[in-house]
């Protein structure tokens, strides 16, 4: 990525990014652009460079922040009405780390409200358009971030991935998107969706950029007790020999051109001397159903905090406190938020807990074991990210099951806590990007990124 130096100023880099952001405003990428703040920060870095002072590894690099990361610059909305007017007094650890290295946030990006969705159509601010075809969805939930990078507005963007929200939009827009190992990057200051699967990651245009960002953002954080002790920078890059492909995904439910793209990459690997191993992973078939029990349960719990009392939107028409809660939540949440909260409360309610939540938690054990078994046979697994390339706007938004099926090959990684890197894999006959994901065992993030270069 382009970093500011004595020849190229940070102000130039930031102004170029802002100009492009404005040029592409019809894509509805940003919920907030901070021209003044970004230029001020760029000038500070340019002053340092002029004085010959040391600057960070991301000096003057413009980036876009998914709008569910807290920072006092602009309102944090999570693209949800219920957070209207909320400006955070605190800053997310990931943001602090990136900015300590000189990265400059130019704006916040659109998402499905509270990251509930696979198309960015569930945003209170309307959908973001696909970078390759404006009639199609950006993917989601981190659609704005993916399109900001794909259209070359910024060098990188942040994302969150609870079930595919980084990998799927990355693949819909032809760029790299990483969901790291669970616990690798601090989640302090990020709007919680499902605490047992939420991960923070990035969108980039190259594996090297991804490695640089991970070396900066990863590590233990006293403010997030679910962060693992630092391992990323100490990881030795492992030499891979065997790459697995999942037999269960090679059928009609996956788009033909995506399956062909996978085969092509396998041929490429074979020509480089890697062995391709076919895996049977029958438990993965149940990952989506388990996911849409466990995640809504955690969503119902995490989103119970939005009550209109302490911050954000408050319904005007309430006569008593109980009404205030119910009206605020009714007016403030999108339909998909409501569906997930109600499903969550259903699977947790007495009489249904054993049949749904407990059953899903047991299915999760089988999925974890399925991955352990697979990684005893192969180094990495290569699979499609989603069953199809970017679909048309409006095509699935009123059919929740069709939208959930988008996540069928991405959610199992979150349930198992393993890392996945979405990589570009060419285009289909209509010019839409195709994506694949590389999956590795826990803590293999660095090797996974390095290995992805073999697939270019």
């Amino acid at each position, binding site marked *: 990525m382009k970093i500011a130096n004595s020849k190229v100023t940070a102000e130039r880099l930031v102004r170029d990014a802002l100009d492009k952001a404005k040029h592409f405003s019809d894509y509805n990428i940003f919920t907030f652009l901070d021209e003044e703040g970004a230029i001020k920060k760029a000038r500070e870095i340019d002053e340092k460079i002029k004085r010959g002072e040391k600057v960070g590894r991301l000096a003057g690099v413009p980036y876009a922040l998914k709008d569910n990361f807290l920072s006092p610059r602009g309102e944090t909305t999570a693209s949800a009405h219920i957070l209207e007017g909320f400006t955070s007094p605190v800053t997310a650890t990931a943001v602090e780390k990136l900015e300590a290295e000189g990265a400059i946030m130019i704006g916040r990006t659109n998402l499905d409200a509270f990251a509930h969705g696979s198309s960015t159509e569930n945003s209170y601010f309307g959908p973001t358009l696909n970078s390759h075809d404006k009639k199609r969805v950006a993917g989601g939930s981190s659609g704005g971030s993916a399109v900001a990078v794909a259209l070359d507005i910024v060098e990188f963007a942040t994302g969150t991935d609870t079930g595919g929200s980084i990998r799927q939009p990355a693949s819909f827009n032809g760029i790299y998107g990483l969901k790291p190992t*669970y616990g690798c990057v601090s989640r302090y200051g990020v709007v919680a969706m499902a605490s047992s699967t939420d991960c923070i990651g990035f969108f980039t245009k190259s594996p090297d950029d991804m490695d640089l960002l991970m070396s900066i953002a990863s590590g233990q954080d006293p403010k997030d007790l679910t962060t693992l002790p630092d391992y990323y920078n100490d990881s030795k890059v492992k030499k891979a020999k065997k790459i697995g492909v999942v037999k269960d995904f090679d059928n009609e439910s996956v788009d033909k051109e995506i399956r062909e793209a996978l085969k092509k990459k396998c041929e490429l690997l074979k020509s480089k001397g890697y062995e391709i191993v076919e895996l049977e992973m029958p438990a993965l078939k149940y990952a989506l159903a388990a996911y849409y029990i466990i995640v809504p349960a955690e969503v119902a719990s995490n989103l119970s905090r939005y009550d209109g009392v302490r911050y954000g939107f408050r319904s005007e028409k309430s006569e008593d406190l109980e009404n205030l809660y119910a009206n605020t939540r009714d007016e403030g949440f999108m*339909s998909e938020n*409501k569906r997930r909260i*109600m499903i969550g409360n259903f699977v947790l309610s007495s009489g249904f807990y054993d049949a749904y939540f407990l059953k899903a938690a047991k299915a999760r054990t089988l999925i974890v074991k399925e991955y352990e078994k697979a990684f005893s046979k192969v180094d990495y697994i290569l699979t499609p990210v989603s069953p199809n390339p970017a679909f048309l706007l409006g095509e699935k938004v009123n059919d929740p099951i069709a939208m959930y099926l988008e996540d069928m090959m991405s959610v199992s990684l979150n349930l198992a*806590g393993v890392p996945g890197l979405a990589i570009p894999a060419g285009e289909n006959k209509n010019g839409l990007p195709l994506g694949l994901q590389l999956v590795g065992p826990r803590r293999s993030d660095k090797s996974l990124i390095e290995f992805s270069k073999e697939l270019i």
Partner: protein
Amino acid sequence: MEIKREDILHLANLSNFSLSETEAESLEKDLDGIIKYISQLDELDTENVEPTYQVFEMENVWREDEIIKQDASREDLLGLSKEVIDHQIKVPKVL
């Protein structure tokens, strides 16, 4: 199981939503479909399988028992609310 209107009203109550009639109707249809879909777990044999609730590899995380300075002050946090009187958040009547 089949989701009926009374189930939707019960879940809306548990979730603290004052749903309109039209929204209750569409949620009834959506939730019925979603619950049918997730019920496919019934066919999975989970006999003698222990549940997994989290995939974090560590157990207790210890730190010194000392007060850590918070990132936001009391004033910052109260300032986020719609109406504050004497350091208290004002809400409509409770009873």
